[in-house]
C-alpha cells in the first residue's frame, strides 16, 4: 500500500504554549528539537520546561533525526490511508509520528528511519515525520 500525501491538521498555533514554541521554530528550519535535562541529562518528549524525570531545568538540542520504528498502525479506513507510529529516537525517547514516502506494506518494527518535515495545513508549522533511512 503506497503512501499518499494527506493534509496534516494542526490545532492552535506555535504561540499557544510559549513553552514549546522553539520546537516549531526548529521544525520550520528543518531541525528536530528535543529537550535535555541539565541535571539528569536525559532527553524526553514531548518537550517540557521542567524535566519529567527529575523536575530539573532543560535545554534545547537538535536531535540527529535517526530513529527506529517502535510500532505502527496503518489506518486503512481513512482516505488516504496513513501510518501512525512511535519511533525511538537515537537520543532515547519514543516519539509519536507518521511514516511518509514509503510502502506501508514494507514497514517493519525495528527498521531504521530518518526525520523529514511536512508543513501542516492552513499555514501551520512544519512537523517531524519519518521515512525509511
Amino acid at each position, binding site marked *: 500500500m503506497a503512501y499518499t500525501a494527506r493534509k496534516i491538521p494542526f490545532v492552535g498555533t506555535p504561540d499557544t504554549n510559549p513553552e514549546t514554541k522553539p520546537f516549531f521554530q526548529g521544525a520550520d528550519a528543518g531541525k528536530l528539537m528535543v529537550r535535555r535535562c541539565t541535571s539528569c541529562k536525559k532527553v524526553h518528549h514531548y518537550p517540557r520546561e521542567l524535566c519529567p524525570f527529575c523536575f530539573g531545568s532543560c535545554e534545547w538540542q537538535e536531535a540527529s533525526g535517526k530513529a527506529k520504528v517502535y510500532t505502527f498502525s496503518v489506518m486503512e479506513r481513512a482516505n488516504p490511508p496513513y501510518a501512525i*507510529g512511535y519511533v525511538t529516537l537515537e537520543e532515547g525517547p519514543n516519539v509519536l509520528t507518521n511514516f511518509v514516502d514509503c510502502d506501508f506494506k514494507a514497514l517493519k518494527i525495528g527498521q531504521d528511519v530518518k526525520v523529514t518535515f511536512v508543513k501542516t495545513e492552513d499555514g501551520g508549522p512544519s512537523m517531524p515525520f519519518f521515512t525509511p533511512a
Partner: protein
Amino acid sequence: MSLKGAAYIAGAWEHPTRKAPDKSIALLHAECAKGALEDAGLTKDDIDGYFCAGDAPGGLGPLSMVDYMNLKCRHVDSTDVGGSSYQVAVGHAMEAIAAGRCNIALITLSGRPRSEGQATGTAPRPGNPAAPEMQFEYPYGPATANLYGMCAARHMYEYGTTSEQLAWIKVAASHHAQYNPNAMLRDVVTVEDVVNSPMVSTPLHRLDCCVISDGGGALILTKPEIAKSLKRPLVKVIGVGESPKHQAGGEIDLTYTAARWSGPPAWEMAGIKPSDIKYASIYDSFTITVLMQLEDLGFCEKGQGGKFVADGNLISGVGKLPFNTDGGGLCSNHPANRGGITKIIEAVRQLRGEAHPSVQVPNCDLAIAHGTGGALGTRHCGSTVILERE
C-alpha cells in the same frame, strides 16, 4: 485500615436501549438512576452521594445532573478517567461511605454517540491546544482504533500474538451475546469471520472493535447495615485499585496496560488471587484490550495472552474463565463510548445468579470487573473492582 467490605452494590441497572435519538443525555442518566433505585428497593430521597464522570452533561462535574434529578447530596465526585471512571467511582464511593460522608451513593453513566453519528474509532478529534500533548499528537491522526492498533502490533512483534488469537475474544463475546436480547450484535461469529472482516487500522479488523451504542447504566452502593436490610442478594466490594499509565516522558512501553498497577492493590485488599475468580468482566473496547488486561491482571503470564484466550477459553460453560457474558462492548453495548459501568453490572448479575441461564456461571461467588479509560496507545487509566457474593 482496609476498606474491604465497607460497601455493597445494592442496585445495578443497564438501560435496554442501544439507540436513543428521542431522549436527552440527562434523561438517560435519570432513567438509569431510577432503574438502579428500583432494583435496590430504594427511593430518590435516599441518595446522599452522587458520582459521575465526563459523560454527565453540563461541564461542571455533577452540578447539572444533581440539579436535573433534584438530588440532595452530602458528597459528590466527578473524577473523569474515561471508560474506567465507574470502577474508580466504586472505589471512591466505598471510601466516602466508610468515612461517613454518604450512606447511599448513586453512580450514573449515559450517552448517545450512535444517534449523534460519532465515528468513535476512526476520526481523530481535536481537543484544546492548551493540553500539553495536543499539538504533538493531533497532526498525526490519533484515532481510537489506531492507538490500540499500535499496541496490538507491538504485542505481536514481542510475543508472537496472532490475529486468530485476538479473534477468539470476539468469538467468545458473540457466543454470549446470542442470549442477550438487547445486544447489538447477536450473531455467533467464527475466527474466520473476524480475520476476514475489513481492516480498520492494522492489525485490527472491524470485528476486533467494539460497538458504538447509545444507552447507559447506574449503580447504587451503600454501607453494610443498609445493604443487609434490603431484599436483594448481597454483593460486597472486597477489592479496588486505580492507576493511570502514560507516555512517561517518552519511555512509553505499549506491551502492557495500567492493569499491571491497578490490579495488585485490588488483589491484596480482597485477599484472593486470579485463579479464585469465577467470572471476569474485562474492558473490551478492542480484542487487544482484553488480551493485554488479562495478562496484566495475572490471569496468565505476560505474553501468553494469545494462548490463554484461544480455543474458547473465555466462553461460559466451555473455557476456564467466562468473560463478558452479556456480550460485552464487543457485541452488546458500549454506551457513551465508555464501557466501565456495564462491566460492573454484568458482574453483579453473575454474582446474584441473574445472568442469562445459558451463560450463568454455577456457584459464582467471586468476580472481577476491570475498566480501561482513555487510549492504551497514549495515556489511560486502569481500574479494578473485585466483588464477592455474601
